[in-house]
């Protein structure tokens, strides 16, 4: 056992740094692979990819324990992976297999694992914030230090359920954090239009809770701001709205041609704002982490996704009797 303090960026140990990088890289590989697989026509249904936004899931969720809960969105793979959901189980779910994390009954938009505190991706925009108010209530009533974190898009921040939840959490003084992933678009509609281009964080003021804006491409910035918000929640000091400015690389869903975006917009973002590139530069420049260590994670992630796709494709579909099960605990 070494007694020297390991090097850190933003107060992070090298282990934490590597873990953060690994989370982002696994998400990226997962999503890039899905993008290619979707094109073959083998993946059923609607698929919304998180590529480009990884620093948010990784930066926020690295502060959470298994008994903290996350309520996610339609764009939920990143949150689920960061919260510890099984990669193979997720991939098999997306392929509609019985080995899927929901036995193939949920699919991409409903990936969940309550044993990991993953309350579900959600096909209903804005439905997650009320759910984490409930998590916060559980923590408050049971006097635990649990925290609930919801993710919502910029578009979702116009949904009444989200806005009501800000107030409910304030009034009940709940240990929750409302993360807003502002990627500038709600489907094809720009934030300039659907929210008059304003910061979502500004809405927090009207409910008397802190509203914070952070660069969502920057793992370190997200990590720090989320740490404060989650710490505040754990200390019993109430909710925070944390807005992360980000970008998505792919269409709203697979199949979207993104003609509403400026030509070259995504290429430019990939070249200049990529969270993985930024992270790599920050940790390698100062010599904190050797590039080779990151390369090894990259290779591992690639292999892991490769294997999960192979397993998913080979896995059995559910038995037809599964249609009728799991509706009720007891009926």
């Amino acid at each position, binding site marked *: 056992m070494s007694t020297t303090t390991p090097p850190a960026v933003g107060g992070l140990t090298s282990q934490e740094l590597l873990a953060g990088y690994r989370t982002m890289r696994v998400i990226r590989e997962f999503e890039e692979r899905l993008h290619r697989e979707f094109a073959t026509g083998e993946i059923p249904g609607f698929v919304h990819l998180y590529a480009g936004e990884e620093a948010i899931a990784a930066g926020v969720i690295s502060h959470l324990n298994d008994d903290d809960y996350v309520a996610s969105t339609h764009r939920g793979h990143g949150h689920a992976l960061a919260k510890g959901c099984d990669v193979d189980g997720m991939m098999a779910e997306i392929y509609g297999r019985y080995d899927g994390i929901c036995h193939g009954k949920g699919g991409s938009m*409903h990936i*969940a694992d*309550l044993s990991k505190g993953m309350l579900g991706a959600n096909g209903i925009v804005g439905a997650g914030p009320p759910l984490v108010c409930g998590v916060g209530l559980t923590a408050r009533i049971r006097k635990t230090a649990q925290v609930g974190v919801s993710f919502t898009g910029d578009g979702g921040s116009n949904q009444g359920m989200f806005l009501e939840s800000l107030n409910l959490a304030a009034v009940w003084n709940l240990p929750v954090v409302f993360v807003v992933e502002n990627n500038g678009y709600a489907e094809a509609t720009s934030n300039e239009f659907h929210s008059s281009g304003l910061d979502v964080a500004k809405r927090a003021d009207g409910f008397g809770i802190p509203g914070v804006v952070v660069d969502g491409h920057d793992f370190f910035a997200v990590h720090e701001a989320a740490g404060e918000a989650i710490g505040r929640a754990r200390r019993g000091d109430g909710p925070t709205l944390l807005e992360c400015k980000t970008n998505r690389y792919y269409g709203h869903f697979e199949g979207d041609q993104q003609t509403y975006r400026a030509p070259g917009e995504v290429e430019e973002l990939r070249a200049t704002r990529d969270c993985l590139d930024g992270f790599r530069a920050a940790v390698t420049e100062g010599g904190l982490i050797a590039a080779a260590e990151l390369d090894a994670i990259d290779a591992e992630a690639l292999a892991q996704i490769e294997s999960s796709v192979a397993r998913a494709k080979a896995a059995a579909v559910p038995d037809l009797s599964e249609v009728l099960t799991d509706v009720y605990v007891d009926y």
Partner: protein
Amino acid sequence: MARKTSFQNAINEAMLQEMERDERVVVFGEDVVGGSGAPGVLDAWGGVLGVTKGIHARFPDRILDTPISEAAYVGAAAGAAASGLRPVAELMFVDFMGVCFDQILNQAAKFRYMFGGKAVTPMVLRTMFGAGIRAASQHSQALYPMFTHVPGIKVVVPSSAYDAKGLLIQSIRDDDPVIFFEHKALYTLEGDVPEEAYAIPFGEANVVRSGGDVTIVALGRMVGVAQEAAKVLAGEGIEAEIVDPRTTSPLDEETILESIEETGRLVVVDEAGPRCGFAADIAALAAEKAFGDLKAPIRTVTPPHTPVPFSPVLEDAYVPDAAKVAAAVREVTGAAAPAGVA
């Protein structure tokens, strides 16, 4: 030990006893305490009609007032249930479902299925329903057919003080999301109610009255209306069997079908609307599974396909009454109306 108490007290008592028994049970809703943040007395209301009165005195930390944000707090009930509590939330009037239905329809009801059987969401949503107190179109609806349509939730509609207590206790102990419908015109109805806690299982209909000539299926306040009709009919020599399903989902098909097997005739009286309603649901059940037993057309007695009118004379004409039920029974039994009855 049973003693007479009201439907309303029975509900209050069920909550208190379950809160005593299980510290995961919490109660919240608009003004369920009443007076939060105000300079006067707390627990000023105990719910808009006093049904949660006294809970705050006993369990001050486990009952919470909410803002008028039904979507947020009904969703919080789902989230709390999924994370370990057993919330009993209140939607003041079921008419307000339109502002929070997503959290029931797409969240609480579907968690277990969507998540492959790995979620348990033991929440109860108590709500007031029904016509008769001149509360007009937006505060008088029955609406349980809409909830019955939704897989994943259970729907309870008690008709007596005894049932209200036993069914609410079962609702709280049940591991599935439950919506519990309280007819506002029944709150003062008295009945024999045991002091101790007891649970009435879901999906077990109550044969409120036995009779061999016709089966009347009725729920909630319509059970009393059916009983009134049955009394009149008995005077005419027609013995009606009244079956109260108590829960519309799950539904005790067996008891209903058995009764029809005996009587060969079915009248369904229901306070919800006629189209895609509960009366149609029961009629369809019989037409599909008891066709061979039926000796006459099925008759449904429901309000018309209209909103609930305000004016007392109109509201009284809107809701099914004993005369309409008796007339329907006479029709299916082929009996003549007694002199003086149209």
